[in-house]
């Protein structure tokens, strides 16, 4: 929409903004099982088991991401041809 348009403020464009971000792959929507959805803690009362499990999940996600980050670093630090397969022969 034209920024000078008189319709600005009349039509809600926020919904379009969400779609745009999804199209650009900036945001990816995934289905999460209720037992793994951390936001469940902020919507419903839970007993000890579920409460501890979700809190533990958040704590462990940092460790998991760190592992992935370290693997990524190792790949980046490796020389370009280190893992390449070299062929030798006569044509």
């Amino acid at each position, binding site marked *: 929409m034209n920024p000078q348009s008189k319709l600005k403020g009349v039509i809600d464009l*926020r*919904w379009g903004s969400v779609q745009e971000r999804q199209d650009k792959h900036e945001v990816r929507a995934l289905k999460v099982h209720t037992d793994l959805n*951390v*936001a469940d803690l*902020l*919507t*419903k009362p839970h007993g000890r088991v579920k409460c501890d499990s979700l809190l533990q999940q958040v704590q462990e996600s940092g460790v998991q991401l760190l592992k992935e980050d370290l693997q990524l670093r190792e790949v980046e630090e490796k020389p370009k041809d280190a893992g390449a397969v070299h062929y030798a022969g006569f044509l």
Partner: protein
Amino acid sequence: MHVDDYLVRGARARLEEFFDGLCKHLEHKPPVFINDEDEVHFVGKRITQMFDEDGNKWYHLDQQRDMDAFLEEHGFVGVRNVAAPVASKALMTSDSALLDKPMATRYRSIVVSLQYFASETQWHLSHAVARLSQMNAAPTAGAEKQLHQLMGWLTANTGRELSAPVMQTTTWDVYSDSDHAGDRALGTRSHTGVVIVCNGAPAQWRSNEQPVTAVSVRVLRCMLLLKRSGMQGLPSGRQRSFSVKCPLPLTHKWTTVRLQSFSLT
């Protein structure tokens, strides 16, 4: 501009250079650097740095000192540990007798303090505190029981902290959920929860009762998406603490979404 607290991030040599320069213009206490031995107390929060067994650096953020003082002030020391902050939603409505004026004032005072902790580091308390806040206008004996349960849980959990490792990449996970009018005793409006987790540490969270009763699941989902998209980046202090920047071009602050706007789209 008037400033009495500031947090600076950077290489040690550059920081020392910065403080030397600052000394020439302003009087200030000697700076405290976060390292293995020292910790920084910044606006009521303790920031510490630790290395795990593999030598990876982690930052931790907690309010244990303030929470211990708060519990002691209100006489919640050595109380029996309870299973969960809100084990049952029925407890809140178990007794509808109104509290007398001094007790109601005390109730509100404690709930406001809990709101502060829930908004700063104790993200998992947000739902419990939001429910208690709904009774602020006229606290009941049932709400008081619920408050005692939460305080009992807190006594054994003051050490809960936000912690994140130092990494090259930054990963954001956004979780959202709604109970879809699951708490009928307190009303038909749904309760929405959103948590944004940055590198394994909750960085921003909300637990709110929705302003209107959603008429369908589709509308509810739209509302959640819009709320997520409207959520602001991290509060600057927290952003600095974990040395990250929000990569998404997120717009303005958390806005209350009007349901009417959905029916037009």
